[in-house]
């Protein structure tokens, strides 16, 4: 065991960081796209079905195939990490989009009514009322997306994007269970860690709003 760690320890650390970078970048882009889109959908709900439907379709594309489709594209295909980040972003959109939309739509209508009746402008209503009340819900979507992305990011190694999948693929190729575990265990631990910390944040937000506990 110590020998194993000695041999692969440094590589595991590097690949974990790489894994985090792929996931983190994708999540950042996904949140930037999905949260505003989700808010926009609450303003014109007739678009909700087609747009969420489209995000849903993205979700159904098998990840290996997705990486493969993106690879020949200009600029994107030049760097495997770009391909990986774009694909991961696509997978992260649905949970965040859906929860942003549902979180805001699910706010007690009488609260929105009062916000209007008191003379809050549309922007004030969004920032002071809707987003805070939907925050724990939106974060729950981010959490689901993050855990999914950590998992899918292992496959990104297939197109040479790096990350912990590197070790797993090498382990599979050389029938080395130790190597597979060296990739799989940190990946699982990373997913659990992110899940737990986002879960904690989510709970705090829900408590602060004094209502609606999301699990």
């Amino acid at each position: 065991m110590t020998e194993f760690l000695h041999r692969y320890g440094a590589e595991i650390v590097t690949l974990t960081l790489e894994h985090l970078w792929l996931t983190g970048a994708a999540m950042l882009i996904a949140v930037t796209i999905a949260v505003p889109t989700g808010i926009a959908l609450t303003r014109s709900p007739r678009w909700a079905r087609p747009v969420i439907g489209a995000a849903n379709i993205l979700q159904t594309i098998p990840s290996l195939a997705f990486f493969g489709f993106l690879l020949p594209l200009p600029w994107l295909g030049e760097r495997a990490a770009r391909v990986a980040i774009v694909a991961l972003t696509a997978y992260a959109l649905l949970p965040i989009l859906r929860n942003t939309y549902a979180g805001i739509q699910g706010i007690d209508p009488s609260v929105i009514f009062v916000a209007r009746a008191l003379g809050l402008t549309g922007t004030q209503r969004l920032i002071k009322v809707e987003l805070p009340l939907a925050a724990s819900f939106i974060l729950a979507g981010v959490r689901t997306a993050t855990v999914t992305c950590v998992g899918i990011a292992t496959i990104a190694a297939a197109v040479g994007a790096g990350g912990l999948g590197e070790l797993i693929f090498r382990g599979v190729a050389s029938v080395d269970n130790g190597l597979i575990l060296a990739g799989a265990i940190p990946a699982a631990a990373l997913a659990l860690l992110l899940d737990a910390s986002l879960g904690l944040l989510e709970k705090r937000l829900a408590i602060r709003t004094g209502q609606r506990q999301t699990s």
Partner: protein
Amino acid sequence: MPAAIEFRSVSFTTAQGRVLLHEISLAVEAGTTTVLLGRSGSGKTTLLRTVNRMVEPTSGDVSLQGTSTRDADLVALRRGIGYVIQETGLFPHFTVERDVALVLEAQGSPRADRIRRSHELLTAVGLDPSTFARRYPHQLSGGQRQRVGLARALAAEPSALLMDEPFGALDPLTRAEMQDMLRALLARLRKTVLLVTHDLDEALYLGDQIALLQEGKLIACLPPKKFLESSQPEIQAYIRAFHRGERSAAAQQEGRP
């Protein structure tokens, strides 16, 4: 001097064609309380909401101090009118202190001013700021929540106050306390109030005039004493429905089951 609030032939028909208000004309003098009384579905809440344009009349006009609300800026109009609704009106994620001063916050007043005003109003409605300022709505009783709602409605020094069944969800004793508090407060502040209720007793206790609505029509608008003495069948029916328990108990005492 023009009336503080005046409805001129206000009608409202829903998109489905249901007539909720039919040609209602009514004037509320400054500093007085007018109670909109009627059973559920009589249109009293709809009429109240035409004042701050949460409902836009299909025809007719509402004016405040002689100025039609039709061309008013919506945000400014609503900020200038206090609004209290039943039970659910507080924001679950705001402390009492912040909720009360929300309109001031929306107007961009400095924080220190907001806190000061908020504490001043909490005191006015009988809540000690040192105990209640930092609480959230779910940490308050129903009566306390209504007090906070009232304090919030007063925050921006509105000339008019709209109250939609403010005490509807409270038990009779708490309700009576709140009515006393409101009556004392209004006597001091001289606000123009439009109050919706289906409670005859509340209407008689708080109103300078009582407007009875039925199926979207204004049946009568009379001062409390005249209201009780009225021979109009709709008014008599409303009064009769209210004192049934009293009459039945009195009858039992006289030995008639």
